[in-house]
């Protein structure tokens, strides 16, 4: 019977170039979606069983008789971007030089003096002399322009020191900050017309914030800020967490990005990152969080009740998972993450001579990780740092290594029942909390510290460098502006783009 089925397939997980494109043996990975009847593991008695004795499928899966691939698909829009890249077939050397200069000005994002291209025009001439036609010889010149340091690096400054960026450098800085790409025609025109000041600059930034390319900032900034690359770095143990799969992990990642997108596009206050009564989820996540199934397909805003134990970044599956190690939750890692992402402080690494953690003896009562890291508070050497780290992570002990809610901690080794979870704690300043919800309320009281750290994160991203004490005044100015705008996200991003610091070398 013919049927139409929709699949949500994360294509990069299937055709992975860096792993050499295993198309068939993908079952060998932890993140497979397709398999094939020639897959040897299906014949392996220790491999996963797909059918029961009666021949019925054990998992929900779809058998495909054939798949047709079409491609490569080159759209009209893509074709259009290539128009005019090559000079005409019978172009004279002067016309080729002019053509290359136009290209180099786009590639290097600034005016290019004719002499600068001499090495590349020489290469063109040498290729022509070696018998290549115009197009083939020109490709060598193009490649040279694209492997030049002016393309690879964002080159700022001259031999003579100057304190501020010129218009071209500013255009590039803004465009790599907000679009992760080169300036477009409008920005180039503004730079050429020296229009990147005052209201001209504000108008440009507003256009950039409204452009669809802002999506790159929305996807990339939270990835770096929240350290989302760590999600799945230690794949969860399949025995302990049978519900975890590649689609859940992809959904978790998308929740964090989608949440940031919602806060940004609605221009909500930063408080939403710390606590909220909504999130952005798809059906898979709603099932995982035990929320009602969402009305539509795909990601959407869904509301949360207090008994759902979610809301804000800190209790998202992605954050709870990336601060665990695949087997166990890691309160210290979670504390370090909160310290870095929320307060902008990286604790020093542990000294080299710490005592190893011993395994739990099988004949002693089961112990939680919290009980095992008590030494952090008792040993003066440890306590100096861990007093500031551990309370930021223990608040999330009611969430396991993949972020599921629990009231008891599953312990493999030892006697007796799994011990109940204690998620209470005391911050270094003496304020106490009983669980993650109360901890979030304490963070909200610290929103100014969070704002300050967040402004620093944004500036680090925009300037591509670590901030120093010399930047203090500039950050303070951005923070002041943000407070006037009620801590609203898009306004803060705009304030950074228009700030003084962004124009400094």
């Amino acid at each position, binding site marked *: 019977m013919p049927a139409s089925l929709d699949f949500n397939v994360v294509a990069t997980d299937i055709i992975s170039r860096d792993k050499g494109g*295993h198309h068939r043996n993908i079952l060998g990975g932890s993140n497979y979606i397709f398999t094939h009847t020639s897959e040897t593991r299906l014949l392996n008695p220790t491999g996963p069983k797909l059918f029961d004795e009666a021949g019925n499928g054990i998992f929900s899966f779809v058998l495909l008789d054939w798949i047709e691939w079409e491609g490569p698909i080159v759209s009209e829009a893509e074709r259009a971007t290539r128009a005019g890249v090559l000079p005409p077939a019978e172009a004279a050397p002067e016309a080729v030089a002019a053509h290359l200069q136009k290209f180099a000005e786009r590639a290097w994002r600034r005016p290019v003096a004719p002499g600068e291209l001499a090495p590349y025009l020489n290469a063109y001439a040498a290729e022509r002399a070696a018998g290549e036609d115009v197009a083939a010889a020109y490709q060598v010149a193009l490649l040279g322009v694209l492997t030049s340091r002016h393309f690879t*690096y964002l080159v700022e400054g001259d*031999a003579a020191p100057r304190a501020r960026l010129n218009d071209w450098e500013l255009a590039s800085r803004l465009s790599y900050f907000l679009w992760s790409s080169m300036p477009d025609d409008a920005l180039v025109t503004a730079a050429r017309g020296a229009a990147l000041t005052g209201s001209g600059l504000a108008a440009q930034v507003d256009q950039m914030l409204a452009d669809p390319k802002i999506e790159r900032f929305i996807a990339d900034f939270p990835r770096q800020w929240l350290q989302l690359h760590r999600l799945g770095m230690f794949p969860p143990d399949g025995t302990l967490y049978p519900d975890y799969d590649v689609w859940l992990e992809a959904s978790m990642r998308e929740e964090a990005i989608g949440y940031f997108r919602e806060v940004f596009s609605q221009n909500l206050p930063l408080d939403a990152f710390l606590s909220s009564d909504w999130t952005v989820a798809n059906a898979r996540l709603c099932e995982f969080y035990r929320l009602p199934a969402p009305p539509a397909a795909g990601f959407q805003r869904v509301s949360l009740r207090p008994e759902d134990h979610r809301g804000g970044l800190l209790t998202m599956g992605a954050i709870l998972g990336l601060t665990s190690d695949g087997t166990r939750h890691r309160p210290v890692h979670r504390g370090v993450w909160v310290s870095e992402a929320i307060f902008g402080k990286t604790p020093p690494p542990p000294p080299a001579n710490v005592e190893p953690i011993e395994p739990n003896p099988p004949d002693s009562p089961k112990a939680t990780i919290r009980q095992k890291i008590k030494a952090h508070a008792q040993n003066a050497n440890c306590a100096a740092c861990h007093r500031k780290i551990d309370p930021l992570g223990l608040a999330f002990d009611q969430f396991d290594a993949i972020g599921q809610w629990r009231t008891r901690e599953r312990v493999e080794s030892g006697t007796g029942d799994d011990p109940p979870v204690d998620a209470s704690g005391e911050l270094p300043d003496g304020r106490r909390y009983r669980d993650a919800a109360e901890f979030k309320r304490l963070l909200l009281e610290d929103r100014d510290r969070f704002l300050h750290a967040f402004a620093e994160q944004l500036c680090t991203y925009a300037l591509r460098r670590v901030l120093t004490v010399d930047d203090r005044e500039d950050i303070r100015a951005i923070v002041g502006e943000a407070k006037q705008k009620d801590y609203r996200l898009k306004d803060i991003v705009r304030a950074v783009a228009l700030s003084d610091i962004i124009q400094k070398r």
Partner: protein
Amino acid sequence: MSHIATQSWLIDRRRALRGLGSFIALPFLECMVPARAAEPLAPRRSVFIYIPNGVNTLDYQITAAGKDYAFSRTLKPLEKHRQSITPISGLHHPGGLGHHHNCQKIWLTGGQLGPTDRNTISVDQRMAEVTSPHTRFHSLEVANKGESLAWTADGIRLPGMSRCREIFAHLFEEPKDGTAAQRRALRRKGSVLDANLAEVHSLEKKMGAGDKGRLDQYLTAVRETEIRTQRADAWLDVPRPAIAGADRQRADREVPQTQAGEYFRTIYDLILLAFQTDATRVATFSSGLEGQGLAIPELGISQSRHELSHHNGDPGHMEKLTQSDTFAVEQFSYFLTRLSETKDLDGRPLLDTTMALFGSGMAYGHSHGNANLPLVLAGGAGCGLKHGTHLDLNQGHFGGYQLDNPGEHYRLCSRPANAGAHMSNLLLLMARAMGVETDRFGDSNRELTLG
């Protein structure tokens, strides 16, 4: 008999290279050493094999130092190679202590890692600087998860190949488009690099000192690419060695990583073939990332090595970890057996000129103990290595092994007993044996002495 058993292809290669030698331009470095006869020493090789997450150190540790040591349960499969190996205890990387799983990144570099630190060159790449003028390939990086053990001087990790078929084709198959097309492509690449260099040189004079560091990095990359382009061009006229018969059957095939044993052995076969045919003299093999060490389905082990290493004292998990460790040692033993059975150019076993280092950057995975690293150095008698003992750097710095008191042993695996016993001392020994002229590597404080 297969073609390579006689190495008759080398005759072609010598003839071709003599013809070429006269017109290769060598701008910055010696580009390529034409004839083997010109080398003062027989070829020397090195290979480094990493297993992630340390071992079940209670079953791994050899307790007696010196000649008359008894093999531990885990190392038992190496017993037949006793005279060709040196198990080493007590080494550590100071930069690895307290840095959890970063130990893999600095295993061959001895570097420091932190917010303001950058990794440095790995020892295999130092060696390749010396060996690569003689071989078609600079070095060979194999990594089942794509992230190799090799790092450039700028602290950038080199990519690794994971698929057996891909590695075979890379080493032994002529590219499909023919010599003329490749030569044209290389010439064009050379033109681009020349132009980039010309641009930089005109710029260098005008530049402030602050920008020079970044420029040097760019310049080094361009220059190295240029040298490799020229070498690749010179190698175009040298036919690749023909691999036939059993060697080809063994190595030229696709093996999924779910068949862990087959996969390990095929990778070892490929490295052996690369050395035997002198395609390269330096290889690294990462058998897993710290988070993704292979499960061993044929032993019924479905957990990754990371999961097993965080055993929390569970006897079942610890037993499986020992089985997984022993399994990796067995495959390494297979490699040594094949190296000892394969003849080098002068008829001696390949093992005599091949130094193989096997081990991990972690000892006690459960608590990320990065001291007393599990390491076995093998082969290379012809490079001056003297084997037959358990080299124990802990001796004289502690009260003896206490395997029946796990806490005490785990402490030894977490805090170095002998603070001066840097793993870089071992890497320095190997580098010098390969002909690298240096008296320091990483944070070495002296060269390790075997025997």
